[in-house]
């Protein structure tokens, strides 16, 4: 059967099952409608391209995570995502008016950005959240020591006193907590940084 004749729902199922070519067919089938819809709202080629890209990144993530509701239809669902992202764009624009550089002057030549980018901040907060969830998987005694040491910045002497064990035991629990965390991360190929 030619791919052009395959229904969206079938392609979505094939994609979820790991057949990457199904996504290409879906994108090519609907790209013009989605792109035109976004362009009709933002009236800017570059922003349309960005919103289109973000729309499909969200589609890909949702499908791969198995969170897609098969009851709905694919195109209206994608259009809804695009619509929400267009609204987000206008909200952001309202808070921060757009500055257009001229050929002879670019504001970014004279202002520096000392702070982390939003992307870096997002990655860091995601990493912290992932680590916290992994810590919750540790045995209770190891979790307790690790939290006291890392999050409360307590010394091993203080930890030993509070948990009523010897310093060596507290040190041992910390060591096993780190070993177990590494094990979970390695076993499941979890990547905690973008480096």
């Amino acid at each position, binding site marked *: 059967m030619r791919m052009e004749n395959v229904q969206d729902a079938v392609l979505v199922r094939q994609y979820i099952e790991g057949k990457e070519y199904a996504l290409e067919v879906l994108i090519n089938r609907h790209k013009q409608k989605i792109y035109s819809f976004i362009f009709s709202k933002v009236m800017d080629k570059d922003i349309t391209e960005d919103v289109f890209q973000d729309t499909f990144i969200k589609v890909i993530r949702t499908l791969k995570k198995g969170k897609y509701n098969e009851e709905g239809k694919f195109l209206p669902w994608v259009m809804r995502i695009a619509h929400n992202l267009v609204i987000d764009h206008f909200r952001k624009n309202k808070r921060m008016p757009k500055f257009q550089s001229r050929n002879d002057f670019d504001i970014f030549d004279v202002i520096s950005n000392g702070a982390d980018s939003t992307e870096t901040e997002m990655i860091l907060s995601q990493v912290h959240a992932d680590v916290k969830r992994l810590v919750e998987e540790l045995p209770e005694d190891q979790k307790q020591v690790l939290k006291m040491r890392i999050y409360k910045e307590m010394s091993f002497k203080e930890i030993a006193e509070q948990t009523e064990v010897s310093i060596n035991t507290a040190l041992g629990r910390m060591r096993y907590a780190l070993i177990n965390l590494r094990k979970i991360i390695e076993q499941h190929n979890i*990547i905690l940084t973008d480096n």
Partner: protein
Amino acid sequence: MAKLYNESLPEQVKPTGPSKETIKFLLNFSKSLHITKYNKMTFEASKN
């Protein structure tokens, strides 16, 4: 200073569809994205 801020003017361009680069990026992004489920947790990993 107020003059530095201006509204973007609507472009007089007809939508031609997304660029080939955007499509290529999305397909590569999809291929590299791996989802790992551990207990009730979901992790994303981008593998090149």
